[in-house]
């Protein structure tokens, strides 16, 4: 199963990024092969609709699930249309969150925040 996480640096010892749409990179982790692929998030530089562009990228990389601290309405809509489940991360350690996911301890993310006319992101 492939899971995607927004991350601050291209290494497993780094941290989960607080923003989904404007994270610098995404980690695509294969739980079966334990392979880790990092992709640059081109959406980070967008004027608007960053969440939409980022989630389109995740869809195109054929991820099965996403783990993130927060997710906006628009990004969620895209992910849900592609039947990609969204989980809520706990703390910012990449390793800890992957472990938690693999042992079934991560909850689904159910607070999808409202769209802010694509200018959200605190």
């Amino acid at each position, binding site marked *: 199963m492939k899971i995607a996480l927004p991350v601050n640096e291209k290494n497993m010892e780094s941290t989960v990024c607080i923003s989904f749409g404007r994270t610098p990179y995404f980690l695509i982790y294969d739980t079966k092969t334990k392979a880790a692929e990092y992709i640059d998030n081109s*959406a980070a530089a*967008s*004027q*608007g*609709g*960053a969440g*939409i*562009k980022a*989630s*389109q990228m995740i*869809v195109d990389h054929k991820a099965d699930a996403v783990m993130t601290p927060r997710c906006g309405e*628009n990004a969620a*809509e*895209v*992910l*849900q*249309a*592609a*039947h990609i489940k969204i989980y809520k991360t706990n703390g910012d350690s990449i390793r800890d969150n992957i472990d938690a996911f693999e042992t079934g301890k991560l909850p689904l993310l159910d607070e999808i925040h409202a*769209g802010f*006319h*694509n200018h959200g992101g605190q």
Partner: protein
Amino acid sequence: MKIAVLSGKGGTGKTLVSVNLASAAKASIYIDCDVEEPNGHLFFKPSNIKEEIVAVKIPFADKALCTGCRKCVDFCRFNALAYAGGQLKVFENICHSCGGCVLVCPENALTEKERTVGIIQKGESGNVSLYSGFLNPGEPSGVPIIKKMIHDNNLKRASLTFIDCPPGSACIVMESIKDADYCVLVAEPTIFGAHNLNMVYELVKLFGKPFGVILNKCLDGENPSQKFCEEQDIEIIGRIYYDNELGTLNSNAKIAVRESEKYKTMFASLLQSVMREARHGTTVNPKR
């Protein structure tokens, strides 16, 4: 003759000035371009109201024709489109209605539908015909509403029109003054007022619009806006002194010109000055 009334800062008296000047004229048109927070209609209380919906064009895909090639998704610079779960998703709040996706679609699968962003109310109030724009709360931009009101009035060039502008100097203000023949800048005697007067001063200069300043809420003591005008050699068309009675009338949404002879005379005189400057300004600085 189209006269735009703007100020840069909110609450300086744009509406007070434009509503009363329009009322002091024999016959005029008043257009409320502050579509986010329109106030003119509260003063005029128009009758004979006709409403018109303002809509923008939003694309949608015919599922039968869409092949999921994603050319539209890749083209959209606003990221308003996504293709997931076998269908095209359109994010209406983000779409700028540029029509680009419809052009790039190789299957002709995209057409456009209308999405309401607000309304325009046309009405009458004595000697004034009004146009008030109302942006629906939650909608980001009032530009399409302003465009429509100004455009609808382009045919009436011969009439005297007052355009009550929004505060600031961003795209909605530009849209409001684009076709104006003359600009009246209203300034209040505070440092905030002078600072923001500077901004709209730069804007009208950039647009090559002839302009003059009306100083509002004048008190004794230093007036930073007056100082600014003197430093920049800007024409001060008139002054409105801080006046409790005027303030109270205004806070009760009463049109001063229609309430008392005193204010009728005051604004009639101000109107004369404005018209004189406007005619002089437009001859000296004819519009391109």
